[in-house]
């Protein structure tokens, strides 16, 4: 059997996603925006990223969503689609987009929960449309021709080189 990648992201779609994220940063007065897939992979980021360990953030956000998703099922809910964590300085607003993408907004006193909610709602619709296309393209890649170059040409030697140090 072959592995079907969860997600294949082409440059043009990545650009569209980043554009929506950047717009959301400015419209919601947010500090930063992250898009993470449910498996913990960081897809896009925008805003003030300095000092944030984005890889760890992605993995923990996905863990958080997975755990609360498990809780929801215990209670007979399909999912808890909106999460809000309030901090003394920064707060986190987390929503699910297109069922499998997590939209994380970090904001401080320059914004408010109400404003973030409002802007996230609008941006989510746009993101959902883009991601539906991404999922379709991902499926098409694997139905038709596989990943192709350069992945079809990966050799054992290439992999050995990764571990050569």
């Amino acid at each position, binding site marked *: *059997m*072959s*592995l*079907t*990648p*969860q*997600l*294949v*992201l*082409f*440059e043009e*779609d*990545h*650009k569209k996603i980043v554009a929506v994220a950047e717009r959301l940063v400015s419209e919601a007065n947010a500090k930063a925006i992250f898009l993470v*897939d*449910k*498996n*913990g*992979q960081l*897809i896009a980021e925008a805003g003030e990223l300095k000092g944030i*360990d984005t*890889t*760890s953030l992605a*993995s*923990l956000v996905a*863990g958080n969503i*997975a*755990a609360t*998703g*498990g809780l929801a099922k215990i209670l007979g809910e399909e999912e808890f689609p909106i999460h809000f964590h309030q901090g003394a300085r920064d707060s986190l607003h987390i929503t699910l987009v297109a069922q499998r993408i997590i939209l994380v907004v970090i904001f401080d006193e320059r914004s408010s929960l109400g404003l973030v909610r409002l802007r996230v709602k609008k941006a989510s619709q746009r993101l959902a449309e883009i991601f539906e296309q991404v999922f379709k393209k991902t499926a098409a890649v*694997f139905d038709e*021709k*596989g*990943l192709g170059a*350069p*992945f*079809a*040409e*990966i050799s*054992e030697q*290439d*992999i*050995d*080189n*990764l*571990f050569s*140090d």
Partner: protein
Amino acid sequence: MAFINYSAREINCKLVYYGPGLCGKTTNLKFIYEKIAESAKGKMISLATESERTLFFDFLPLSLGEIRGYKTRFHLYTVPGQVFYDASRKLILKGVDGVVFVADSQEERYEANLESMDNLVGNLREQGLELERLPCVIQYNKRDLPNAMPVDELRAELNPQGKRHDFEASASSGKGVFETLKALAKLVLLDLRRSK
């Protein structure tokens, strides 16, 4: 189920260390974290109890270099091994690209190994995956302990047809740790080649 980002020219893969409680999954990750070059690793996260038992998962991101112009990143996760954390194990297995099954070689943990292997097969099946078809390597850990069972006996149950790569290890000293990781990384990347 890797994530391929053509824009950032990255391949991201998720590797999960599975096995019974106290078999050494976290110890594997800690050793990798200590030994790998600063430039190749991110922060290691452990969501553990006060007595250092894994509560949810450990996470270690590795960035090993480039293959054909693409950065290869591996996200290493461990599951909590204790039986009653099964809900958490299921969550962590989602989207897995490859599994290291860490067996505890001690005689008194023999049954726990078999139970954990059954649990892995069952939890993968729940998300529509067959262990048979997933990149997987087996590590017989704690070979340094006096009560370690002969490898052949462990292999007879955990790798009966010898189809999987398996390694003897002593994760606390690091023996076998990188061999195990390397073997799995190789299987996962070669699987990309076959993707269609």
